[in-house]
């Protein structure tokens, strides 16, 4: 079992006139910095906030009926559009965490890893959830001509989990960030209940954390 990630894995949201709208997951990578997938934030940085955990430990009972949310503003400080990554600053907040920022080079296919995030955030669900899986493959994925190291996780992911950290179970290091799941690019799909059925499989893509290290 890895260290408790509760205080280092933070939900991101946008303040709206109707209240906060959850966007995805982020992870602490420095005392006052969070990393997430760029597509979670997008090109609009207005009203971005980090949603502080309501629980003290992942072992606590999280109250799914509690609508309260304590937030603090975040600022997008660094962007790598080709790796789908961004680093956010959290002014006036000091985060303590145990993990180092490593690289997906350190995990071979078959290695055990743990992810932590906020699945079903598209439905407003704010439940920090740990998932354990293994590395299925190591792949280079192109994005507009730039190839990046990704690992494929043998697990299904849901909206809200983009930006979730992937920890190496052996070292506890942050080795990748969830960015989505495989989807064929050949044909248009249909969306049912906010879900593209072509993404309902256990082929999750996570980009190597080494690119985050370069952004700090």
């Amino acid at each position, binding site marked *: 079992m890895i260290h408790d990630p509760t205080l280092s894995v933070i939900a991101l949201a946008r303040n709206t006139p109707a209240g906060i709208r959850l966007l995805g997951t982020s992870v602490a990578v420095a005392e006052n910095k969070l990393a997430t997938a760029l597509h979670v934030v997008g090109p*609009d940085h207005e009203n971005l906030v980090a949603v502080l955990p309501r629980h003290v430990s992942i072992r606590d009972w999280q109250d799914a009926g509690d609508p309260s949310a304590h937030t603090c503003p975040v600022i997008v400080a660094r962007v790598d559009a080709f790796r789908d990554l961004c680093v956010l600053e959290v002014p006036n907040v000091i985060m303590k965490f145990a993990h180092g920022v490593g690289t997906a080079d350190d995990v071979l296919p078959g290695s055990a890893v743990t992810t932590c995030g906020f699945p079903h955030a598209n439905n407003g669900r704010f439940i920090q959830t740990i998932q354990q899986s293994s590395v299925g493959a190591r792949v280079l994925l192109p994005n507009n001509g730039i190839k990046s190291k990704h690992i494929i996780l043998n697990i299904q992911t849901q909206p809200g989990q983009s930006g979730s950290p992937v920890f190496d179970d052996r070292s506890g290091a942050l080795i990748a960030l969830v960015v989505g799941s495989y*989807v064929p690019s050949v044909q248009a799909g249909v969306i049912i209940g906010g879900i593209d059925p072509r993404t309902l499989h256990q082929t999750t893509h996570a980009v190597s954390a080494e690119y985050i290290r*370069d952004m700090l």
Partner: protein
Amino acid sequence: VTVDLEEFFTGDAASWLNTLPSYQRTTVDILLASGKSYDDVAEAWLSASVAHETHGFGVGESAKIFYAKVLDEIHDLICTGKGYEDEQKRVLAEFKQGKTLVAATVTEAISPHVGSYAAFLSVAVVCALSSITKVGKNAWCAMQSERRRAENQQPPSGNLTA
């Protein structure tokens, strides 16, 4: 007062890239080495999102920033000064202090007009500044004026019904 920045957009066009942090500079260099132009790289940066054959699991709908809009704003700032009179004077004053400050000022100035933020736009702006230097400021301004004129003359898309 007319501000002429022509003399500042001379020399090595690629020197603007030195204003980028190394993690951005590295990928821009790869794309330029593959034969893409500065404008191609800027377009690629702004249109990059999730990786190939990847479905992102963020929740929000992501707006798209069009490079033409970025060019429009830089054209107004560098060439016409329209709406950017104060920023143009700042750019003129800052050129002596180096390209990093100029690139940051231009990016900060146009960000709210484009509807984005500096960290997201910086690569596209730096590529545009490189492109200006490559062809010369006056030639670039004339090209952009012509592009905007042509775009404004295009009929609106969509079907008209009686």
